[in-house]
Each structure stands twice: as C-alpha cells, then as structure tokens.
C-alpha cells in the first residue's frame, strides 16, 4: 500500500529545472504584485470591492497558469548527473 502511494507521489512531483525554479518564483511575484496594485486601483476608482476581488482573482489565475504546470520550457535544462554506480 505504502509503496503504491510512494510511486503515486513520485508521479505527481512534476519537477522543473533549477533555473526555472528561480524564474517562476520571480514571475509569480511580479504577476501578484502587479495584480494587487491594479486590483486596488480599479476597486478604489470604481468604489467596488467586487471589481477588486475579481481583478485580484484573475491575477491569481494568471499566476497559476504561468507557474504551476511543468511546461517543456521549464524542464529543458537537464543536468548531466553522474552515472549510477552500484553502491554498497
């Protein structure tokens, strides 16, 4: 049972390469900050909290689309790992 779970866990990792780890974090931060500022301005000038929430929600969705999936572009940089050796 636990082996199946572990196997499943390994399948669901969707790793991305090291450079993309740094980049996605930066994209995420930029999108969310821009979204937060835009949402505050739109909400304030429309005097509507609904507009604010919707705008910020959209920013979160955009961030999710950009950051979450392991796009091929994010997994391109493969490292040359040492070849496995039989270790005791």
């Amino acid at each position, binding site marked *: 049972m636990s082996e199946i779970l572990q196997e499943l866990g390994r399948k669901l*990792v969707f*790793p*991305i*390469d*090291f*450079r993309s*780890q*740094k*980049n996605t*974090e930066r994209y995420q931060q930029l999108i969310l900050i821009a979204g937060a500022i835009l949402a505050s301005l739109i909400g304030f000038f429309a005097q509507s909290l609904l507009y604010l929430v919707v705008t910020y929600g959209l920013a979160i969705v955009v961030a999710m689309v950009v950051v979450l999936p392991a796009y091929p572009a994010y997994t391109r940089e493969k*490292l*040359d*790992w*040492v*070849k*496995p*050796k039989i*270790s005791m």
Partner: protein
Amino acid sequence: MSKPINSYSIPELRQTLDESLPVVFAKLNYKQSFGLIDGKLSIGYLIAVVAAASFFLDKKFAYKEVVGYQTLLVGAYTILSIAFWYYTKYVEKGIKYIGIKKDGNRLYVKTDFEDGRPEYQVELKNGKGVELKIALPVNEVFNEAGYLQNNLFYQWVEKQVKNLETKKTQ
C-alpha cells in the same frame, strides 16, 4: 542512504548532503563535536516542552483557572523563541559540522545553497582562521535517480580539506 530523493529539489539535496557530512569526516579521522547541535536541540526541546505544558493546561482546565500559569508559559515561550532565533543566527551561523582531529585541530563546516543554483556552497575554516570557500555542483555527486554517490562526495571533500591544509602552510 537507502532512499532516493528528488534530484531537482534544493531542500532535499541540502538535507542529504548535510546529513552525510559526519560520515565523510569520520572517514577523514575527524571526531564530531556536538556542542552546537546539542545547544540548539536543548533550546528547541525546551520550547516544545513549554508549548506542550500550555496545551495540557488548556485541555485540562478552564481558561480562567489557569490564566496566570498560561501567561508565564507564553512569556517563557516568547523568550525561548527569541533565544532560539538568536542562537541559529549569531551562534550557529550556518555551521553544520564541527570536527576535531587527534592533534586538537578544529574544523568548521558551513554550507548553503543559493536560490535556483544547484551548487553546494561549502565554507571550510580551521582553528587558525584559514578559510576556504568552494562550490560543488550537485550533479557531480548525485545520479539521476536521486542517490548520493558517497565515494564521489568523499573524494571531493578529501581534496578540499587537503587544499585547506596547503593554504595554511603558504
């Protein structure tokens, strides 16, 4: 090292490498000094005990009966947490291993990772204040499946320690 790790995860790489330091240095005839770790663990577990006591009082008694004790416990927790933070930041300073050779020579090992770079940043320092900063690309000691190649790591560390010794003689 029976379990493979995710070779693209910096936290897991860090943990595996840090935890294999004692093994490697033991092979190099260093004896580990546990002072720093024990200090950290004792403050840490003191915090845990205080929290557990507070939790226990909370479950067993009504709020108003134990307000005084809870105030003391929360105060102790706050002070200990600050002490713990101070200890990791200014006493431990990222030192992961302290080794002593038979001749009494000490060796301090600090390690770190930079954000998004698969390089193990190692800082060696001996008792005389000679320092050596090196970086080990992780793909030179891990294989694709996520197993640390102990012998490769050992060879690398051995070389660095030798470099440190020669640097001293200069």
